[in-house]
């Protein structure tokens, strides 16, 4: 099952991502990216990270992308608008940069036996005793005991974000 989910999710995620960054129409980009995030969620599920998988949909696909959509609708970013790949030099540079990054990382991954040979389910189970299950309760317990500080800092960060965006967007503060 895990393997199928990898291929399915991976394909969706990559296709969605590629389409998202190349569409002329910004709204189409958003929808492709939503698709990519759904694929990503399948990937998480394949890694037994159920909680993260669901949160991924809830927050990324269901909230953050809505915000993007709103901004696009708000700013009249229609097809005829601004969204164009119109910097050929940058395109080439982009392809080169992205390609290089990807190639290097992939090479590292393939070359590392720790990730290939010891990265199968069986190997992990043998090594760690069990496959880790990212169930809600487990993640929650970790979060609220060991990672207390990041948790609280996040809340402060969110507060800052609220204040920041309100201050930025409201004309008469």
């Amino acid at each position, binding site marked *: 099952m895990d393997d199928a989910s990898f291929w399915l999710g991976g394909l969706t995620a990559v296709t969605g991502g590629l389409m998202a960054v190349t569409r002329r*129409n910004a709204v189409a980009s958003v929808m492709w990216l939503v698709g990519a995030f759904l694929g990503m969620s399948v990937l998480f599920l394949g890694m037994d990270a159920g909680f993260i998988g*669901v949160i991924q*949909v809830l927050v990324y696909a*269901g909230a953050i992308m*809505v915000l993007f*959509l*709103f901004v696009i*609708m708000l700013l009249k970013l229609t097809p005829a608008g601004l969204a164009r790949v119109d910097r050929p030099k940058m395109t080439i540079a982009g392809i080169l940069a992205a390609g290089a990054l990807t190639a290097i990382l992939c090479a590292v991954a393939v070359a590392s036996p720790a990730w290939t040979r010891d990265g199968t389910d069986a190997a992990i189970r043998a090594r760690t005793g069990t496959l880790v299950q990212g169930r*809600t*309760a487990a993640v929650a317990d970790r979060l609220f005991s060991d990672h207390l500080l990041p948790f609280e800092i996040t809340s402060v960060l969110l507060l800052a974000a609220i204040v920041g965006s309100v201050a930025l967007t409201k004309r008469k503060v």
Partner: protein
Amino acid sequence: MDAVMNWFGTPVGSAVVKVLVVGNVVPLLVSFLVWLERRVAAWIQDRTGPNRVGPFGLLQSFADLLKFIFKEDVLPGHVNKPMYLLAPALAVIPPLVALAVIPFADRMMIADLDTGVLAVFAFSSIGVYALALGGWASNSKYALIGGVRASAQLISYELVLGLAALGVFMITGSLRLHDVVTDQANGLLIDGTLRDGFLPKFFDWNIWKQPLGALLFFIAALAETNRAPFDLPEAESELAAGYHTEYSSMKFALFFLGEYAAMVAISGLFTTLYLGGWTLFGAENLFAGTPALQTAWQIAIFTGKVVFLLFTIIWIRWTVPRFRYDQLMDLGWKRMLPISIGWLVFTALATWAYAQHVR
């Protein structure tokens, strides 16, 4: 042959069967619901309502559906075609998927997820795109205003929905909806002893432990499904038909279907969270000897509760006037949000005190 039967025995196979069953029952239920809506509206208004098509007019919705299928499928030239087509599809998929997580009988659900309610919220949050895209892609002012308003309404009340339901999980300690139901079926644990029997079991329902939470959830659910008094996205009379103004034939029907399916889904969720799901004060085990019958009976109980809720929702719709847009936002952000936070704090303190007391 055997291979096929065996495949149905596998988790995947049984899931496929359930999906097919649920996927086909839901449209049926929706068509019944549309009929119910029109009949109840008529009764409230001293009328008869549709009664010519089939017995009691029960086939009315099918006539409507078929008509939509055979109606010209207009793909107007002024719209953004891919998005325009995507929107109705997105309207109907999320509620269907959300239904997959809701248990309708003991150990009967399509997917028993440990993220349970979060998954439901996650799927239904995708529904926002249907409205926003529908309004945007239509390239029409009425649709655009309607779509933007509708999606803003939806996301605002999603918060309240999430906060209101939180209390239940603080009590239950699990997001798994199956656990939430079984938790409501044991009877009350008072001073360390488990009181069984009708009354304790009755008061074990979360609606008694979380009255305000249930109310908030119910109101937010009305808003989430665009039902009166929150039905402005499509019924606000200044916007003609709102975000689906430009949709015709089956595409419009899909919006319609999605909306009613969302009603079914959210009623199912409410039943699960607050009304004890398939349980009925012990009566759900009436046919404990015959599992098949037992399951059918429990499904009947569950469906009964859901239909009652749906009836209430319809009843409310034909009673109240509609909010204005800003009132609705005010209600969501300025009243229900703080109240639900307050209720959350109260629940936390109460359970904490209780835990101290028991210890």
